[in-house]
């Protein structure tokens, strides 16, 4: 089985500093890492490879520094890695990036990988676009927002996957599927492994193959059509914190009471006493009256 995983280097969000006056993002301070969801995608791909055998190809599009994420992939267990880059790519949006990745995956003499993993979204722009767009360009079915993945034993010997997708408010969708397929992985899917020290050192020595996406036959970016220009970056205004200010009309005792209660407004309380059965009746009646059951 051939698996490919698409990775991206992204700044750790806690290292992001925006100058409050100029609105400039201080890129010098960025701590670049393998994007969290992508690390989970890589881990998921590795686990499948270990279970079922096969090869894992890790692909990224990014400048020289992005070699780092491929070294992480090698250290964790990827078999081959490659970086796509062209200086003009700094301005590419997610659709163009997906088209470049698709062109690279198409360029292999053999057919497409059986499975392609992507992170659901990156920590910087969080567009969540590359995965579905890549699936569209490759003509593959997709499952996004994967939070559960399990390879099932199948009598035919083919890979059968049970996939859980996250939906809103804790709802989940369960699906059964077979390759070929593209999956985008949510960052809660798994706990990515730490590579061993020897693997890490070996990865530091590895030479990383680089490919110019503009040289790929299937890639003709229409950058003009898609791209967004950045007009302005600014920091969010801090949310106003609601302070509980006690009513000055009240007596000092009551004011202290209000402060102590955290500013939650006092209500007309119906206080009931009695045996638990009776109180339970009252509770159910109250819930019904107010339409909660």
């Amino acid at each position: 089985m051939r698996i490919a995983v698409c990775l991206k280097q992204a700044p750790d969000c806690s290292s992001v500093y925006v100058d409050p006056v100029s609105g400039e993002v201080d890129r010098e301070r960025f701590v670049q890492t393998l994007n969290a969801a992508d690390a989970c995608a890589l881990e998921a791909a590795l686990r499948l490879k270990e279970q079922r055998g096969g090869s894992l190809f890790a692909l990224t599009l990014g400048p020289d520094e992005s070699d780092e994420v491929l070294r992480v992939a090698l250290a964790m267990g990827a078999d081959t890695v490659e970086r796509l880059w062209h200086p003009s790519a700094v301005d590419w949006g997610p659709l163009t990036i997906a088209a470049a990745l698709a062109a690279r995956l198409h360029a292999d003499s053999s057919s497409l990988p059986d499975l392609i993993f992507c992170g659901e979204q990156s920590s910087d722009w969080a567009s969540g676009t590359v995965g579905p767009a890549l699936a569209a360009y490759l003509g593959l079915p997709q499952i996004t927002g994967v939070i559960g993945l399990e390879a099932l034993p199948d009598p035919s010997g083919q890979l059968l996957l049970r996939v859980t997708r996250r939906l809103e408010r804790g709802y989940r969708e369960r699906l059964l599927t077979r390759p070929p397929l593209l999956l985008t992985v949510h960052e809660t899917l798994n706990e990515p492994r730490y590579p061993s020290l020897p693997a890490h050192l070996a990865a530091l020595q590895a030479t990383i193959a680089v490919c110019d996406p503009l040289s790929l036959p299937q890639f003709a970016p229409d950058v003009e059509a898609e791209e967004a220009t950045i007009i302005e970056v600014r920091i969010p205004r801090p949310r106003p914190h609601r302070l509980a200010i006690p009513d000055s009309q009240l007596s000092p005792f009551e004011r202290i009471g209000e402060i102590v209660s955290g500013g939650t407004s006092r209500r007309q309380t119906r206080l009931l006493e009695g045996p638990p059965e009776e109180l339970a009746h009252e509770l159910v009646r109250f819930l019904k009256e107010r339409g909660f059951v």
Partner: protein
Amino acid sequence: MSLINNAADDAVFMRGESVAELWVVLQEQEGLPPEYNQEVLAEAKEVAAQYPGQLQLCAVQLRAPLSSPVEKSTVPFFKAVVPERLYVLEHPALGRYTTEGYVAALSWLIRERTPALIVTSATVNGQDWAPRLAAQLGLPFVARCLRFALEQEALLALRALYGGRAYVQTRTRLGRQPALVTFAPGTRGTPPMTGSPAVGLPMPEVITYQPSLAFEERNPSLQHLGIEAPSAEEVELEAAEKIVAGGRGVGREGFAELAAFARLLGAAVGASRVATDRGWVEPERQIGATGKSVSPRLYIACGISGAAQHTSGIREAQTVVAINPDRNAPIFALADLGLLGDAREILRHAMQLLQEESVGV
């Protein structure tokens, strides 16, 4: 440069016709709050209002045929904002969400009507079909906007960067083809209701299509096993309508009963810090100053004394019930209903009553 712009006379999306269309694609899914659709409608209406008489607000609904008539099912849902037009696209494959179904149906409708702009909520499913549709049709796409506006030849969008540490305003050039936008859910909140939906509000013009769709990329091996609702211990507290919370007075064993009661009520489980510190429940369940702030319609506090650090997290709760044997517990000052007694016993009896009723009916 501001996101609020004055109307332009001949914007590129006009295409020479009299009225261009701004679509809001409605989403339906178990667990999806209706506000997510309503806030997109409200936002889109404001954008359309920048071009009076030129840009028409339309809603798009995808569904299986023979569902209940739209006048009954969909139209009452337009509470505060009623679109001028409602496109209903019916196909047997649209009974539940599939990527292929949505992409194929919307591609068809886009070719049919060529709107200027398509907006939908950036839910998990919205973020599933929208980028794919954009890639497939070669449309400009802006994901997870907090606000957006149309200029003469461009789409302005406000987006969050780096997990909300910065905002960015972008301009995307519009060509002759429609642009696609997803709107970050929960950004705007529910628009206020203007009166009862049934009276006074205009009806949208309803146009129903039943196209035959070709599903080129259908995956024959993709089998839907089902949708699962979260359990009481999993419902996100911030989003929960009802919360049953427990404190020291419930005890470790009592939390199982409390969770069972919450499940019966369709509520989420919450806790005081004592309960989370002792490992009776997950730390994410803690409510209060160092936990979560919640805004449920119903909050039932069991065995919680009502320390300020706890109650500061329930300021927005609408109805509060407290169960505690100590009549001097500060929590009673905030409660609409106070029950003096043992929380576990009362919950156990109440559970019995609720179960009997649901069986009896």
